[in-house]
């Protein structure tokens, strides 16, 4: 039983980390209806910039702060150079633009900061909590626990921002109907800059946590793969959905890998979440928390 609990808890904690990555996608989709393919690249860029600055002798806390400022600057540049000229274009054009942006960010990040794999030490030990292990036999990593708390706090703050503040409501209005929002005087440019900045900051946090977990290297771009089934299950436009989807994917993929995997040759963790996501798509295409699709027929 302790083993089952350990797998389940480990999966839930991993799921929160997936949810964190998914959150970046949700923010941009929620405000602009664009699936930002560059989110994985932004995770990589954030972690690489912070560790790159640290390697130049900048203290880590200052490197993180500088990277956060850089993220906002990048958001402004993206809005000015890519989004604004494409605003009147169909959503597929914007999607393709983010696809190109992903490759540009990945290439430039490595050209500027090099392609060395780096360690990132946030000062949080990645070892099991001894008291918990001794008393229950269940091993839970201190790092996983702290990372989950950080991710949950971020999800909470962003949820509150979207629902309680004037800017948050403006973002939702833009997402619901861009033209109507413009007609009532909501500044679209500012909204886009805010939302891309927020997504960039979320990517930075995700990059730092995943980077501290596995090292800062190119493969950080691949954490986005973990977010796709989370988005399908949780819904593309729901912040709590990203969290719930992450928990479902994290727990189910671990349990499936341990209890079903050995029966069918193992290694099912990579595709099992997509099976689950496909099933959800059939039953509830908008996801658990996504905006319900209502069509007039």
């Amino acid at each position, binding site marked *: 039983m302790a083993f089952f609990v350990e797998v389940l808890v480990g999966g839930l904690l991993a799921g929160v980390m997936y949810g964190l990555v998914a959150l970046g996608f949700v923010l941009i989709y929620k405000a602009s209806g664009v699936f930002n393919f560059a989110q994985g690249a932004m995770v990589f860029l954030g972690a690489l910039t912070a560790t790159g600055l640290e390697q130049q002798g900048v203290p880590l806390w200052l490197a993180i702060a500088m990277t956060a400022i850089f993220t906002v600057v990048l958001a402004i540049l993206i809005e000015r150079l890519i989004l604004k000229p494409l605003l009147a274009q169909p959503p597929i054009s914007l999607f393709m633009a983010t696809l190109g942006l992903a490759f540009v960010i990945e290439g430039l990040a490595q050209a500027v900061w090099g392609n060395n794999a780096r*360690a990132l030490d946030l000062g949080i030990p990645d070892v099991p909590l001894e008291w918990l292990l001794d008393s229950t036999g269940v091993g839970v990593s201190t790092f996983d626990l702290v990372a989950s708390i950080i991710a949950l706090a971020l999800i909470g703050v962003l949820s509150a921002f979207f629902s309680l503040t004037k800017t948050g409501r403006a973002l939702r209005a833009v997402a619901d109907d861009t033209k109507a929002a413009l007609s009532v005087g909501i500044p679209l440019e500012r909204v886009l800059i805010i939302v891309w900045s927020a997504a960039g900051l979320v990517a930075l946090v995700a990059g730092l946590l995943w980077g501290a977990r596995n090292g800062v290297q190119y493969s950080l771009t691949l954490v986005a793969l973990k977010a796709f089934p989370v988005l399908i299950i949780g819904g593309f436009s729901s912040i709590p959905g990203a969290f719930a989807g992450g928990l479902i994917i994290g727990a189910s993929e671990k349990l499936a890998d341990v209890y079903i995997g050995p029966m069918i040759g193992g290694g099912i963790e990579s595709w099992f979440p997509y099976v689950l996501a496909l099933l959800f798509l059939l039953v509830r295409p908008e996801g658990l928390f996504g905006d319900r699709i209502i069509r007039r027929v």
Partner: protein
Amino acid sequence: MKHFYKLATVLLSASALLAAPACADQPEQYIPVLSYRVGPFAANGASMFSGLIDYLNLTNAKGGINGVRITFEECETEYNTSRGVECYERLKDRQGGASVIETGSTGIAYALLDRLPQDKLPMTTMGYGRADAADGRVFPWVFPLISTYWSQAAAMVEYMAQQSGGMDRLKGKTIVDLYHDSAYGKESFPVLDHYAKEIGFNLIKIAIPAPGIEQQAQWLQIRQAKPDYVILWGFGVMNAAAMKAAARVGYPREKMIGSWWAGSEVDTVPAGDAAKGYLSMTFTAPGSFPVLEDIKGTLYDRGKGNLSGDAKFGSVSHVRGIVIGILMTEAIRAAQQKYGIGRPVTAEQVRWGYEHLVLDEKRLGEIGALGLIPPMKTSCADHEGSGAAMVQEWDGTNFIPKSKGWVAGDRALVRKLAEQSAAQYAADKNITPRDCGKED
């Protein structure tokens, strides 16, 4: 930005080097370099191909191979098979024709396999590719030099046996093979399965789906199995993630033995303290060797090194590239001995050179590489040449030798497996194996 400027400087230097006319009457030997310095595997590729170019430049700085200057040209493959094939086709006929190909990529190497006999061009696959290509009768143009995957797996079992007090002491022990869920990850299966059956140890295979960034479930299973050793047949981010996950469940890193593609600084540095004590196989020994000092003194101290910074000098990948260069120049040198000293040789003659490599302790000492690689001797039938590997340990900063010298498993077993597999390949492809008795 520093790296950007350095990259630009390196590219300009390389262009200048290539553009610079050699002495008007100095003969030249051309080697295309199919490198990958950008993309997902750039961290390893950039160092490895810099190592190769460093050694070629060192050779030129010393007057070339018996006066024959090496010319080379890089083509960026990004570790992408289609780009690799494109580079191969673009470069193979340049400058009088390529001497040899080394892609550093399993995918590209497989894609070129059928083109090599038509182009009469040898290809080295050092530490990767088909293990059965060691049988030169069926694969006359492919050279999996030093050690193949199967030799590596056999050497791993041999090392574990040495640590346990003998091969029979492995009986009843539990060994987990944590493998990358790909063709590469399963390369060890024939050898490990054979040993498990023959000796009687419990072999548990656990797959990690690519990319392997999250391994909590697999490591909980490992902790439950309480294995005596964990073989990490990993690649890319999976390796650092495995070390971190091992630390998380409290599995000792000293009992983890990685394959050589899980045994470079790119794998250990990102794992931080969790990598300390971790073991891995290697076919190039860690440490300082005269050839490295020579490269440093001749090239790097004069600002002519190919790496974008000195930090990666002497890293595992950099040294692998240097060794590729050593084997290339030694094969050309051997070919010159037969076909004419001081004259460029054809690719077919270079193949002859690769089949007559004799890198004994004396020769390795002469080129400053004694102890850097195991002594090796190739032949028409044996394109591997050694079959030995070393176990190295990450001490938190550097790799240091762990095994006492080179370790080789059951070579007869590995050879038997290679011959069986090569025979099957020959049957499938309608290839008549060469009669090595009739080769000169």
